[in-house]
């Protein structure tokens, strides 16, 4: 290794520090600013002549001209290995619980801890044998990690083909113990431990090929799975003005989505929202595994008052960890809340760098960075040719003023497969989730028959038209047929689109239940009811709605459920026109 470079501070402007250096620095190289006995982490983001601009991941208070800066020669990387699950990290992968033990109530500047417990011991089982030829990402052995088998792989940054010289026998091994010794074609020999490092800004590409995502990811949210589905390995975004329920929706998805691992990136949002996850997930049971939700989660949290530069890093840290578990052959769901805050972090740095601003002062490279981030999602076939793994990315977007025409929303819409637009109109009317049923779209496959879905959509659209019309011509100017269509669309909205997150039963609706209930709803939408007047029609639908809502609160398949269904059927029969 060459002698580490040093430099001297020549300027401080917010979290941007200008450093004069002597020989060579690398773009995106990590450097530490020394202040007293503290070292503040930073990253090179621009080089001009013999001066480099560094974004510092900490407060720059107290820095002076000519303070020393040490370059590391490494890009910003994360540690990957067994033990990531259940962890809570900041944007730079510092474990927050350990930080709290060391530093108390407040985050301490310049305190960096190991992301993984380097003393932890895992029960290692070898897979590779001496003489095997491996490439990066191939399995050397495995350890049990909670509910999963965690594979130890040939580190992703090992280029070319490597021959296994020796593998550790089965038994307990410390995470930093050598589990294999490998030799490259050129004769270079290296040790492999259970921990490997990967630069966060580069995608991990140790797989055979990317496949088309076709399987629907069941989120147990009726509006999503039925109307605007998300595919395993796909991408979606949830833009919405503040107060429209973005975070509540994301939490519901993270709790109920049928996926193996969930990585949550709380990026530049409220700390309070993360606290709910931190405090509740260790106690909530995941019905699919019987373990807690925390056992399948990794949380990256860089909340709004934490340093801005680390916010930019946090989404990359999250997606790198997601890709790592994808390499294990698992389905990973990454939820980023919110990508707008990440974009704003880019804007702040761009402003300090005095770059020529693009629209709304966002940097001109915003679009390509957003696209690059979402493109790290995908369903992949691993090197063994039979295992698949996936990363599904869902990003929330917080458009300024709730206006979807702004640059971050527009750049996101270009690259995602599903758009779940949250509307203020619906949230004001307390219609949750406030996903707009007409404006949203999805390229993926719904769990219900396409024909029924088209019919439901048409009812919603027609219902809205009638509603608009009624505002002009009044209820008395609307004929009963149209009025019934309007009532039907409202019925669909109230009993199916709306879902009560705070009710234990209604909060999650699995695909079986959705298909069953949707069929019943379609039956009502298609039914030919007979009414004497509008008041009677309104009355009927209000009552029917009530029986349906009661139904939604009953456990699927229970006796009570069947009983309520009989009540509903009787109610429908009562008004059906005799053909």
């Amino acid at each position, binding site marked *: 290794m060459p002698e580490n470079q040093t430099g001297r501070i*020549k*300027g*401080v*402007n917010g979290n941007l520090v200008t450093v004069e250096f002597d020989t060579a620095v690398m773009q995106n190289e990590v450097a530490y600013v020394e202040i007293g006995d503290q070292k503040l982490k930073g990253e090179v983001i621009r080089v001009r002549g013999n001066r480099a601009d560094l974004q510092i991941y900490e*407060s720059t*208070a*107290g*820095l*002076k*001209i000519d303070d020393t800066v040490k370059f590391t020669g490494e890009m910003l990387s994360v540690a990957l290995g067994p033990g990531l699950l259940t962890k*809570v990290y900041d944007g730079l992968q510092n474990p*927050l619980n350990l930080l*709290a033990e060391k530093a*108390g*109530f*407040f*985050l301490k*500047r310049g305190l960096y801890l190991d992301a993984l417990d380097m003393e932890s011991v895992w029960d290692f089982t070898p897979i590779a044998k001496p003489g095997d030829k491996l490439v990066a990402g191939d399995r050397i052995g495995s350890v049990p990690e909670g509910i999963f088998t965690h594979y130890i792989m040939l580190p992703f940054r090992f280029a070319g083909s490597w021959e296994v010289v020796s593998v550790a026998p089965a038994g307990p091994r410390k995470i930093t113990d050598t589990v294999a010794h490998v030799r490259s074609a050129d004769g270079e020999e290296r040790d492999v431990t259970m921990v490997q490092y990967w630069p966060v800004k580069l995608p991990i590409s140790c797989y055979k090929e990317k496949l088309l995502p076709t399987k629907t990811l069941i989120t147990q949210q009726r509006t999503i799975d039925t109307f605007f589905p998300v595919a395993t390995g796909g991408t979606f975004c949830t833009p919405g003005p*503040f*107060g429209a329920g973005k975070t509540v929706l994301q939490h519901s998805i993270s709790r109920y989505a049928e996926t193996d691992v969930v990585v949550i990136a709380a990026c*530049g*949002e*409220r*700390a*309070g929202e*993360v*606290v*709910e996850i*931190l405090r509740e997930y260790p106690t909530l049971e995941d019905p699919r595994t019987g373990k807690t939700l925390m056992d399948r989660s990794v949380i990256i949290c860089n*909340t709004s*008052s*934490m340093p*801005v530069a680390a916010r930019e890093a946090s989404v990359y840290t999250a997606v790198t960890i997601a890709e790592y578990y994808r390499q294990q052959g698992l389905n990973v769901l990454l939820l980023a809340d919110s990508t707008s805050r990440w974009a*704003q972090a880019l*804007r702040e740095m*761009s*402003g*300090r760098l005095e*770059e020529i601003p693009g629209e709304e*002062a966002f940097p001109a490279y915003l679009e390509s960075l957003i696209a690059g981030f979402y493109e790290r999602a995908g369903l992949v076939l691993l090197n063994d040719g039979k295992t698949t793994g996936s990363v599904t990315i869902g990003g929330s977007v*917080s458009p*300024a*003023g*709730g206006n979807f025409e702004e640059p971050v929303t527009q750049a996101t819409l270009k690259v995602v497969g599903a758009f779940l637009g949250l509307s203020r109109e619906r949230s*004001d*009317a*307390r219609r949750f989730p406030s996903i707009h049923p007409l404006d949203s779209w999805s390229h993926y496959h719904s769990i219900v028959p396409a024909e029924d879905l088209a019919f439901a959509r048409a009812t919603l659209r027609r219902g809205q038209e009638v509603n608009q019309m009624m*505002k002009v011509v*009044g*209820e*008395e*100017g609307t004929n009963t047929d149209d009025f019934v269509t309007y009532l039907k669309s409202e019925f669909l909205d109230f009993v199916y689109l709306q879902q009560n997150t*705070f009710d234990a039963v209604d909060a999650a609706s699995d695909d079986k239940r959705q298909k069953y209930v949707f069929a019943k709803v379609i039956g009502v939408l298609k039914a030919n009811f007979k009414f004497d007047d*509008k*008041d009677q029609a*309104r009355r009927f639908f*209000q*009552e029917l709605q*009530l029986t349906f809502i*009661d139904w939604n609160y009953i456990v699927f398949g229970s006796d009570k459920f069947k009983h309520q269904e009989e009540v509903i059927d009787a109610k429908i029969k009562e008004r059906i026109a005799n053909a």
Partner: protein
Amino acid sequence: MRKVYHKIIQIAGNVITVEADGVANNDLAEVTSVRGTSLAQVIRLLDNKVFLQVFNGTRGINTGDEVRFLGHPMRVSASDALLGRIFTGAGVPRDGRPEIHDNMIEIGGPSVNPAKRIIPRKMIRTGIPMIDVFNTLVESQKLPIFSIAGEPYNELLARIAMQAEVDVIVLGGMGLKYDDYLTFRNTLDEHGALSRSVMFVHTAADPTVECLLVPDMSLAVAESFALEGKRVLVLLTDMTNFADAMKEIAITMEQVPSNRGYPGDLYSQLASRYEKAVDFDGAGSITILAVTTMPGDDVTHPIPDNTGYITEGQFYLRGGRIEPFGSLSRLKQNVNGKTRADHRTVMDTMIRFYADYKETLEKQSMGFQMSNWDNKLLKYGKLFEKNMMDLSLNIQLEDALDLGWKILADCFDAAETGIKTSLLEQFWPKKD
């Protein structure tokens, strides 16, 4: 020992530049001019140039004036002696009593580790149904009051402060009219609350830079009380003046503006203040209520917009009432499930019908014939506005919920409400 510099090479806006060595970022300096001595803070370093933001403004500063660096950043005393005292944004007593120098702490300290926060679970009762029933205030919440000039936001703030069950009140006034400052002081005094209050007041006539310090001073003091286990309520008014002061400095520093002239870090700057609201694991809490006047009543203006994304909900104050639409306490579901079984249902149903009422009102104003249903809604809307929305009401939550059921029963049949049957059986008022 401290070196004194006599060469100011640039004066622009409230920022002066001197050539000096060994100066640390964010440190304080004293600038002495014909107008007296003012504090100033280092905001940027470039080679041997030091940029300082002068708290009293740069009017009257001579290029030959004296700049003396103090070697530490801005600090404020954190002690019980602060209670009952009133200071300026820069921490100078405004009440003619002596300065306090005990236990000086730095302002704008680091962020709380999320792992040390707990989920807010304690409701703050205000006696105002629009808050208690519909948008419950929760300890450790940060809530802005979105308003326009002329609305009684300071009265509302004072009123909530009077009735809220907290140990310490910290009031941060930014660009406050002198009359408003006096009103606050007198109201707190009359209700015997001044002795549990600390006020940092920047009035409209004071230098802009001092305005920037008010939130940090207030919150640093609040934090020190909270760490002692106290429940602290921080009242900030008006955050729009704070944001405008930031804009002024950013433009002076030739930063690229992002949206309507505001700096690109407006969100982060506001967030680092609002995020001081916290319920500590094993200590007290900080709750923040902050007035944000919306320029031109436009909620998409960068200040209210960024604020809305940071805070845990918002109250809209219009026509002297808290608007039921848009007003939201995001933390209410943490507490309103445990108040009474019908709390959430009453809240949702009443707002839904009020929205329907507004629609009907629109139809009525366009001259359409009113159906039976419309007439029911009209009756409901009037009762709701009269009995629930009035901000001068002071009734307990339970009474307010009963009132809600009564209004519903006066206007509708049980089946028309769409309420779960089990709740109807328990709470629907029996007709005699």
